[in-house]
């Protein structure tokens, strides 16, 4: 293990810091209002889409984990937003890079990275949640097209998206896992209806999506017909990495520390209260563990188990950070929506609720534990599902 920075890397770090210092104005106020402009700037500088080849709209740098880390750390330290991290950028782009056709890469990666095309992920269905392979939304062939009917559920951001990457049963005769294709579907195709679903946060973060004879050219399949299950597993890997992202968690820890330093009860700072301070320190240790675990999974090929726990631990940790923030705020912690005493626009409560959703979404905690036990620890598999 060697974590010293070469002079070149040290210079790179200065460069990133200088960039952030020079653009503090932009991201403090501007990036919130103009995320696309901020994103374009980040791609130009190589602080977003860093390793995506230039011909597809990325920055085109060679993969360099240490530089990636330096960028992440500098952004956290400055409290600067990392640019767009939606399902398109975090899941579809890596999938296309891995298994997309040349035409698909050229068509979709650039606009997705720049935030011009927003994607949603159409996997889950009413009867296919944890048991995703039982999905029923299906296509029949008609010349060069697929004609899709069925419905998807819990589709995040479908109400904002121009495109969906979806799992569709295209080979009805094939075994469960081999009959599914990964299809790119424009959301304005006739026959698609999106109905927002309100969640416990009071907002509609996800939707029901209904398909009635939706016509999509067959060349919108990624990775080959009937290969969707395997393509999706590529994507899921990226989703779980995104959901457990230690950088986002560390940024949140910093916000919590700030909160506990500034908030007072009866004139006493919360961080001076030994019990709250101890809870904060416990969580900080876990955040550090996940941060270094993240570094390890990037650089150590033998770290299989370390990779398998990221989604479970990362999502739990985010939820716990929000829980501590609410407890630290006490009665003020239950305020929501608006009012003169509301803190951080109610973000901590929103996180506390939405992060519980993320413990469920992208593979529930129980499913994650099954994966850790079976794939990570080699325990026998759960009894296999009945034939659907």
């Amino acid at each position, binding site marked *: 293990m060697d974590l010293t920075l070469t002079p070149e890397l040290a210079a790179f770090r200065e460069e990133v810091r200088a960039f952030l210092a020079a653009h503090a104005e932009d991201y403090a106020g501007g990036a919130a209002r103009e995320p696309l402009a901020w994103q374009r700037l980040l791609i130009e500088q190589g602080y977003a889409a860093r390793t995506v080849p230039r011909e597809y709209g990325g920055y085109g740098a060679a993969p360099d984990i240490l530089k990636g880390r330096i960028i992440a750390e500098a952004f956290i330290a400055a409290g600067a937003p990392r640019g767009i991290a939606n399902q398109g950028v975090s899941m579809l782009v890596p999938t296309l890079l891995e298994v997309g056709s040349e035409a698909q890469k050229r068509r979709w990666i650039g606009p997705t990275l720049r935030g011009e095309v927003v994607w949603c992920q159409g996997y*889950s269905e009413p*009867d296919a*949640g*944890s*048991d995703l392979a*039982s999905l029923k939304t299906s296509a029949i062939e008609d010349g060069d097209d697929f004609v899709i009917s069925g419905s998807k*559920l*819990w589709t995040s951001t479908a109400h904002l998206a121009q495109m969906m990457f979806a799992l569709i049963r295209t080979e009805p005769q094939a075994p469960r896992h081999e009959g599914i294709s990964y299809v790119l579907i424009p959301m304005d195709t006739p026959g698609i209806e999106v109905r927002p*679903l*309100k*969640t*416990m946060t009071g907002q509609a973060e*996800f939707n029901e999506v209904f398909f009635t004879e939706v016509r999509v050219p067959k060349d919108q399949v990624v990775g080959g017909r009937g290969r969707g299950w395997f393509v999706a597993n590529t994507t899921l890997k990226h989703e779980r990495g995104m959901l457990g992202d230690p950088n986002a968690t560390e940024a949140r820890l910093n916000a919590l520390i700030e909160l506990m330093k500034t908030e*007072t*009860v*009866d*004139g006493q700072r919360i961080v001076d*209260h030994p*019990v*709250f301070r101890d809870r904060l320190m416990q969580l900080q240790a876990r955040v550090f563990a996940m941060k270094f675990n993240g570094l390890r999974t990037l650089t150590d090929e033998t770290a299989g188990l370390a990779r398998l726990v990221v989604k479970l631990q990362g999502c739990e940790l985010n939820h716990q950070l929000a*829980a501590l923030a*609410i*407890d630290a*705020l*006490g*009665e*003020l*912690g*239950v*305020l*929501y*929506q*608006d*009012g*003169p*005493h*509301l803190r951080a626009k109610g973000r901590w*409560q929103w996180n506390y*609720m939405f992060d*519980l*959703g993320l*413990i*469920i*979404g992208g593979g*529930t*905690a*129980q499913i994650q*534990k*099954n994966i850790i036990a079976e794939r990570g620890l080699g325990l026998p598999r*759960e009894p296999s*599902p*009945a*034939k*659907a």
Partner: protein
Amino acid sequence: MRFALSEDQTLLQDSLRRALEQVAPLERVRRFADGAEATAPDVWAGLTELGLPGLLIDEAHGGLELGLLEAALAAEALGAVVAPAPFLGTAVLAPLALKLAGSAGQQAKWLPKLAAGEATAGVAISEPIAGARDGAGVEASGGRLDGTALFVIDAPGADLLVVADRVGGLHLVEAPPGPQPMSTIDATRRLSEVTFRDTMAEPLASGPALERLRDAAWVMLAADTLGAAQTMLDRAVAYAQERRQFGRVIGSFQAVKHLCAEMAAELEPARALVWYAAYAFDHAPDEAPLMAAHAKAHLSEIGRFIARTSTEVHGGVGMTDLLGLHYWFKRIGLNRQLLGGPERVREAAAKAQGLSAV
């Protein structure tokens, strides 16, 4: 000795549950939560028929003259259906304040009206109990109050306010100033900010009344959480028997079974703790502060666990508004913080038995 509810207490519980099914079904709760109504008078009227407002008020003043255990059973039933009702302030804390510290005149004036459901009362005791934030706190001098009280309970439409000042003295405010709504996660109850400016107030007798009010409030919040958590557990168990994945009901997965069992294992003993804390308030006053604190803090902890776990058992649909499960989740969340979060309350538990230097 028998550690169980009496027949009368069970009857009270049953009739309350039945009445609540009628007056506060989930559709009614939703309408209250989504709307701008400051109070739900129809719900309160239904509960008034059962005598709920006079539960703790002596018969001479038109009440049922029951104890805090009965009030806890009522709170549990209200929590179980997340009922929008001004129970804590109007039926428990205000009558208790009058009983503990009111003059004969004050009692004669207000208790009969409260018992009959003809008046409602709000209670502003947050600052001296949960700590002062954002410059809140009420100053009393010469029969006048000044300052701001946050998280005032049952203030909308109240004819009367019981107010604790900064140093713990209690006051009665007739014709209280208009409350400002405070928007919280829990839309089934209304909390308010009330500002006093040279507001006329009658002092209530001094003494340990505020501490008694605090203990009663803690037991009530614990009982409300008990009821809400029980509903969340019941719903998780029912859902686990219904929802199928991988060709079988999810309740047949040991992981899900264990989540349900853990909830039950935490909740069942807590029921006895709440009962005892309520019983001790009337019958073992020396133990009451300790038991009330533990009931409040412990139910806060397991309430949070159950709120989360039940949601998890439901998967994605637990997150949505469709089942309304979140009303229970948020009610438990508010109970946890109101009048002190568990860390603060456990300090009081330590203090109550001399385990704390300060």
